[in-house]
């Protein structure tokens, strides 16, 4: 690897050839501020915040795109550079909706942070109120273009990372804006709700559709029994909302905090992750042994399911008929739990806490309703939970560790790793191995771990060869599906997560500042918390959980039984690319 030598603010530094000035500066411990740069997603040199002076160059150059060169002399903080950044910020502020106090990104907004640092005067350049229309048509998110700074990170995420491409730049010059074709509302497009656009946005232009009020109202309603349950990856990320280092497992405090919001019960969604595995492993073995549709694809990711419905409706028979853990929990609560505890299901208000925005659509799916009511009433993102905890004045970091409520407290490590890409696959393989082979040794399937976009492996279990693939990020999902359609790929079982890295990097997760996420591997650190939890648990396999025994003995009979099918399985809806 060829190394080159240059100076950043007089500091000598050595970096691999091909590095940018931005990367070279970081190597010299010099932070250059950025706005439109997002590592591996967007590098276009548009915002002009990262401008620097380079000896011999004409004008100021953008550090994020400019290649570092041997002998280069870079100056990142001269008066000319600082004046330029300040003016750029003032120009952005001149037509930015400045309602910072009520904006959900207050204190976590890149524009606000930089403007404060540079003392930008928001009124310097004839501020205008743009009054652009707000798009809140979809159940997942709200786009407010009055806050958009045209960084294009959302478009890059949707087009390049997710290959969904339902948003793009429209018109040019000052009238340029991001939206869907013909400025149609997002709900009328093939948007899958993955929320990668939200977590790419440096400001408050994109936020999830808030369900907080509904939850507060239900908690305050004496008639309602409010039940919260939390997805596996929340324990690994909620702490970031309160200043904890990335990858801190805050399960105990998470339960304590939710309890103090006032619901009646706090349950562990890892339980229905286990339930999903039991049902799905059963379904997989059945398909393999009786010539069912293969490969079978996981169906716990609602972003992937919607993607399949829009872009590959012919592929729907490949999806497992299992509902997602969230939806299974809702079904279990409104049937088994309600009956057992003599509660009228219409008085149950079920709230899931999930790392996901696509699940805000999943809860509205008509095919998944139980009679008159939805399985789950509200899907709340990690960020929304963080806001509710702050609003309630709870000091998260000083809470004691508490445990989930009975009977939905105990789950296996296999359930916990659902949040990482490859986790569902590994959990399913553990249970399938025991079913086919009577044992599973070793318990770790390391070939499907890690943040690589597509992972493949072949396992032989009880004489059965199972070729598997794991993909995260929808562009990778598309590659796998296209490969199967062309006959180039041959698998029995495929796990798809819409979000790169899996749910730990979901559209509902805390948004880290650019200075962290452009240089820190969030996916690996957050996933590690889950794998560490798994390896420290007594129960490592889904079917071992006593809660499984309870559910099947008392209600569902056995995996794949008629009652299990009625409540725990679903069908899918072929949708076109264009929703007219």
């Amino acid at each position, binding site marked *: 690897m060829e190394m080159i030598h240059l100076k950043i603010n007089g500091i000598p530094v050595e970096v691999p050839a091909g590095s940018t000035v931005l990367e070279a500066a970081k190597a010299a411990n010099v932070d250059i501020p950025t706005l439109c740069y997002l590592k591996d997603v967007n590098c*276009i*040199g*548009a*915002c*002009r915040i990262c*401008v620097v002076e380079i000896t011999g160059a004409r*004008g*100021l150059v*953008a550090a994020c*795109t*400019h*290649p570092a060169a041997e002998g280069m002399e870079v100056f990142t903080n001269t008066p*000319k550079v600082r*004046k*330029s950044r300040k*003016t*750029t910020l003032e*120009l*952005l502020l*001149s*037509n930015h909706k400045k309602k910072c106090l009520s904006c959900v990104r207050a204190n976590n907004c890149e524009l606000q942070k930089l403007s404060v640092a540079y003392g930008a005067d928001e009124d*310097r*350049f*004839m501020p205008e109120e743009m009054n652009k229309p707000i798009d809140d048509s979809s159940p997942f998110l709200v786009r407010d273009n009055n806050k958009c*700074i*045209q960084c294009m990170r959302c478009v890059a995420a949707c087009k390049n990372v997710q290959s969904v491409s339902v948003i793009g*730049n429209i*018109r*040019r*010059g*000052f*009238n*340029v804006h991001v939206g869907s074709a013909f400025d149609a509302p997002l709900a009328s497009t093939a948007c899958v709700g993955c929320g990668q656009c939200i977590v790419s946005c440096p400001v408050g232009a994109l936020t999830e559709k808030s369900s907080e009020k509904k939850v507060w109202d239900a908690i305050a309603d004496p008639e309602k029994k409010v039940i919260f349950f939390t997805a596996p990856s929340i324990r690994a990320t909620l702490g970031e909302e309160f200043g904890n280092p990335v990858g801190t497992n805050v399960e105990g405090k998470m339960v304590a905090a939710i309890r103090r919001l006032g619901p009646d019960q706090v349950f562990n969604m890892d339980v229905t992750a286990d339930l999903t595995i039991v049902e799905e492993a059963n379904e997989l073995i059945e398909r393999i042994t009786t010539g069912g549709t293969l490969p079978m694809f996981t169906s716990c990711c609602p972003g992937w399911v919607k993607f399949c419905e829009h872009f590959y409706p012919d592929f729907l028979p490949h999806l497992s008929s299992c509902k997602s853990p969230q939806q299974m929990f809702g079904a279990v609560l409104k049937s088994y739990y309600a009956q057992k505890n003599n509660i009228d299901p219409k008085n149950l208000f079920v709230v899931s806490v999930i790392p996901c925005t696509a699940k805000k659509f999943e809860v509205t799916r008509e095919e998944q309703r139980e009679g008159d009511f939805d399985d789950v009433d509200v899907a709340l993102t990690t960020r929304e939970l963080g806001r509710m905890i702050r609003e309630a004045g709870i000091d998260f970091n000083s809470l004691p560790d508490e445990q989930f409520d009975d009977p939905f407290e105990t789950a296996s490590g296999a359930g916990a790793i659902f949040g990482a890409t490859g986790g569902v696959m590994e959990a399913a393989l553990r249970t399938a191995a025991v079913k086919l082979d009577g044992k599973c040794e070793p318990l770790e399937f390391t070939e499907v771990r890690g943040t690589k976009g597509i992972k493949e492996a072949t396992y032989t279990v009880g004489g059965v060869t199972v070729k598997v693939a794991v993909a995260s990020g929808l562009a990778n999902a598309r590659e796998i599906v296209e490969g199967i359609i062309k006959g180039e790929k041959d698998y029995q079982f495929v796990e798809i997560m819409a979000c790169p890295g899996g749910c730990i990097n979901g559209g509902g997760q805390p948004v880290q500042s650019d200075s962290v996420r452009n240089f820190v591997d969030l996916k690996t650190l957050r996933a590690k918390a889950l794998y560490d939890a798994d390896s420290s648990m007594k129960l490592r396999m889904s079917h071992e959980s006593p809660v499984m025994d309870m559910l099947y003995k008392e209600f569902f009979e056995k995996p794949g039984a008629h009652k299990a099918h009625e409540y725990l399985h679903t069908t899918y809806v072929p949708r076109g690319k264009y929703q007219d």
Partner: protein
Amino acid sequence: MTIASYAVGAHQGYVYVRAEYPVAVHRLQIALDQAREYGLLGKNILGKGHDFDIEIRLGAGAFVCGEETALLTSIEGNRGEPRPRPPFPAVKGLFGKPTLLNNVETYANIAQIIRKGAAWYSAMGTEKSKGTKVFALGGKITNVGLVEIPMGTTLREIIEEIGGGIPEGKAFKAAQTGGPSGGCIPAQHIDTPIDYESLAALGSMMGSGGLIVMDEDNCMVDVSKFYLNFTVDESCGKCTPCRVGTRKLLQLLEKITDGKGEMEDLEKIQDLATHMKSSSLCALGQSAPNPVLSTLQYFGDEYLAHIKDKKCPAGVCKNLLQYEIVADKCKGCTLCARNCPAGAITGTVKNPHVIDTDKCIKCGVCMSNCKFGAIIKK
């Protein structure tokens, strides 16, 4: 282009033509077809073993696509947004391949230079600007059209001899070169030789060779506003300094020509101009402030008149004009009052009439109707 392709080993060329020139496109297509017939394009040209062909690609109404990286992005089928450089097109250009990109005028010179020799070409022009340049001469000038002149010809020669002088005996005020990216050359510099360096030294540029002559009836603040209107329309919107900066510059100029200008607006204009020149992604943003800076430099008094006195000396900016009837010239014929669309003129027959400036919409109909020259603009 074929010679250039041979020099660098390229096999595919493209000509990017503005769609507003359908005649040029049609003729170019004929020329390309004829060249192929003669074996000057295609496989094994002139039996020398070199393959080269040319495709026409049309623009679709975007000035920014004259910027080289935007042009390449447009040929690639995208929105014509410029790309950061480096990497330069010669390293990573069209479809990611090393690309040689030049103006038609540059390529057109190649054949002559090779045929008649470099010494012949260098004999024309100045030390640093060799050969000839084509200009589009227009505006307040008797002879309009395309002129090809040796570099170093003075502006005076172009205006007085080649251009035939300013019509109606009006006074020469300024010549704008380089279009919306350029600046103006005022009357005191009329003896400037036209070449790359001299124009740059005066705060202007050669650009695409536009040379627009202006006279005493042009308001230089209005002229820079016209150019900013153009750049606001043509900005691609990708980078902050240009997308927002051009709009803010235009708003400041509108403020000034509307009679609402303040002295600190000039400071803001200067700051914006410096910022856009140093920090814009491409030359459109970097050069957008040039007309303003240039007119401020040479016609600063005009700006001050607009701001301090709320007056437009050239009589162009409507909001700063007042139409007035000169009492001792007015015969009271009532023609103006009868034609005024706003009913702003009062007066009785054979008596001097008066314009109510609050009602006046400054359309000028009264002045063009008056047979006695009794109505003036001030």
